[in-house]
């Protein structure tokens, strides 16, 4: 009887681990389909819960250990709960970066603990694992925090990071990392550990800091992949196969996702990582803030725009990052409700990389109760633009630049764009003539059918609402509204 119980206790952790791995794999797979995404997320959460229970049964922690586990759980769990509930949908990219950095930090701390305080002498394998864990963990942490700070606008891109000086600095840091990595296995708790820790942290900052806004999602996705690698390395450190599998899975899947994002932006991973911020390195003339390049700009007031909207039959909104910054999704929804009540056919054109993260606009507009069916992806909406009476571009820039199709010398050439220039009339709502992330002029702004409405997206949308209500739009039932009453 004793024997059979022993067997069960030995088999149990393996069984749990296997189930957990299976659920994790199903979770990741399910997350890539709209219909199954939500349950897949729950599945993955369940898998993690199972893994924890399985491990605790196996480890049998003492009462002191339980106390510390409770402390850590309360701290992290509560903070996570609060952050997840409080954070606005517009700040999702930053939030993911922050969470990711913390994951990296966790792997780093485990490696530090083992290297500094473990009583048993670590063998060569775990020494090498410590090196990887510290290196990747530190880069993930510092890189993610820099990414978050840049997305929040707390950090700018310093000028020196755009010169080739940064390559020299980063190479030197990488060299220091290498020295630390070679020295560490010889004496795990000596100087090499601190050198590796400091150099990796600085390297994470040095690599992330030069990267510009549009490329940030790619970087976060890559860092996300790193945190998987860090978890796998931590798995080697503590000898957990489940951790190795899960870490490797996330690492590899993150890499694929990074590649998918790069493809959507027509950028290569190498140019994202080493090319610096787009435009800053391109032909010097097209600086980030110059509007001197424009000669035929027409600007108009909200009133003129409102008149055009009132007479239109088909209106397409093209939301971009400006909409997210201005938190204008609710105003936009209100405006489209008003127009729909007026009998106007409204749809939204969603570019794959509109906003700061792929899918950013979908999340944002979903928050404002925009019906899912009205969000049209690029391939579907592009043939529809010639039929659109009015297109309103809200804080989007590079994703509607016609040069990407027509001008082989443009840095954007080849990037799939929304063919807004095919519409009868285009209004571009923008705060200034400043360039987009790519730092280049937009030929759309100078087309004869384009008019600029300068201002914050939310203010302009609210202005349009006031104007339209002033004209009596939406007050009368659809049927009795005379179109074109002016």
């Amino acid at each position, binding site marked *: 009887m004793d024997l059979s119980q022993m067997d069960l206790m030995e088999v149990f952790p393996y069984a749990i681990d296997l189930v957990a791995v299976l659920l994790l794999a199903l*979770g*990741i797979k399910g*997350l*890539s389909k*709209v219909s199954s*995404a939500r349950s897949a*997320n*729950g599945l*993955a*959460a369940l898998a993690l*819960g199972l893994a924890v229970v399985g491990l605790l049964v196996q*480890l049998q*922690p*003492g009462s002191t*250990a339980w106390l*510390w*586990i409770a402390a*850590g*759980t309360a*701290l*992290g769990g509560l*903070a*996570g*709960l609060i952050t*997840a509930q409080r954070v606005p949908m517009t700040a*999702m990219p930053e939030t993911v970066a922050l*969470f*990711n950095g*913390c994951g990296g930090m*966790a*792997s780093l*701390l*485990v490696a530090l603990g*083992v290297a500094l305080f473990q009583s048993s002498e670590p063998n060569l394998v775990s020494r090498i694992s410590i090196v990887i864990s510290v290196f990747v963990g530190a880069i993930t942490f510092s890189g993610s925090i820099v990414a978050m700070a840049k997305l929040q606008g707390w950090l700018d891109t310093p000028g020196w990071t755009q010169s080739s000086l940064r390559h020299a600095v980063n190479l030197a840091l990488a060299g220091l990392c290498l020295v630390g990595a070679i020295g560490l296995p010889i004496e795990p708790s000596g100087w090499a550990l601190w050198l590796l820790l400091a150099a990796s942290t600085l390297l994470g900052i040095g690599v992330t800091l030069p990267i510009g806004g549009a490329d940030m999602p790619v970087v976060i996705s890559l860092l*996300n992949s790193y945190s*998987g690698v860090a*978890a*796998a390395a*931590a*798995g*080697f450190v*503590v000898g957990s*196969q489940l*951790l190795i*599998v899960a870490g*490797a899975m*996330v*690492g*590899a*899947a*993150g*890499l694929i*996702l990074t590649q998918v994002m790069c493809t959507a932006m027509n950028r290569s991973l190498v140019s994202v990582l080493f090319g610096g911020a787009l435009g800053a390195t391109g032909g010097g003339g097209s600086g980030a803030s110059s509007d001197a390049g424009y000669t035929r700009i027409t600007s108009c007031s909200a009133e003129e725009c409102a008149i055009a909207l009132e007479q239109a039959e088909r209106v397409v909104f093209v939301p971009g990052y400006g909409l997210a910054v201005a938190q204008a999704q609710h105003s936009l929804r209100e405006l489209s409700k008003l127009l729909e009540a007026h009998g106007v056919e409204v749809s939204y054109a*969603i570019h*794959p990389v509109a906003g700061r993260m*792929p899918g950013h606009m*979908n999340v944002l507009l*979903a928050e404002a109760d*925009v019906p*899912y069916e009205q969000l049209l992806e690029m391939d579907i909406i592009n043939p529809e633009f010639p039929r659109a009476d009015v297109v309103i571009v809200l804080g989007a820039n590079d994703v509607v630049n016609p040069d990407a199709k027509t001008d082989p010398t443009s840095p954007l050439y080849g990037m799939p764009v929304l063919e807004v220039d095919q519409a009868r009339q285009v209004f571009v709502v923008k705060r200034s003539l400043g360039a987009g992330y790519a730092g280049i002029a937009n030929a759309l702004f100078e087309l004869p059918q384009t008019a600029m409405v300068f201002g914050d997206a939310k203010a302009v949308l609210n202005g349009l609402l006031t104007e339209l209500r002033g004209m009596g739009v939406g007050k009368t039932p659809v049927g009795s509204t005379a179109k074109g009453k002016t």
Partner: protein
Amino acid sequence: MSSLSEALWVLLLGSLLGLELIGKVPPTLHTPLMSGANAISGITLLASLTLIAQANGNQALLLLGALSLGFALYNVVGGFLVTDRMLAMFSRKSKSKSNSNANPGGS
């Protein structure tokens, strides 16, 4: 060394599995997928738990372990809840508001 080769096999197969899992992802799901995968990478909390359980009363190890557990759990709990929040919006919209009470399913 057999445990090492075993672990390396596990690493290799896990990586291959990860490469195969995500093929075509609609752009809509890029952000939630990234966020979900990110939550999963918080599984490093298993290492934190191991560190605490095997600390043998070493205060420094316990403290580091608990800190690391906190960071990892922040990643896990926050990550899953945030992903659920995003995905809840999609499903509510596509089912035309039939299930209005969005219930976070994370642990």
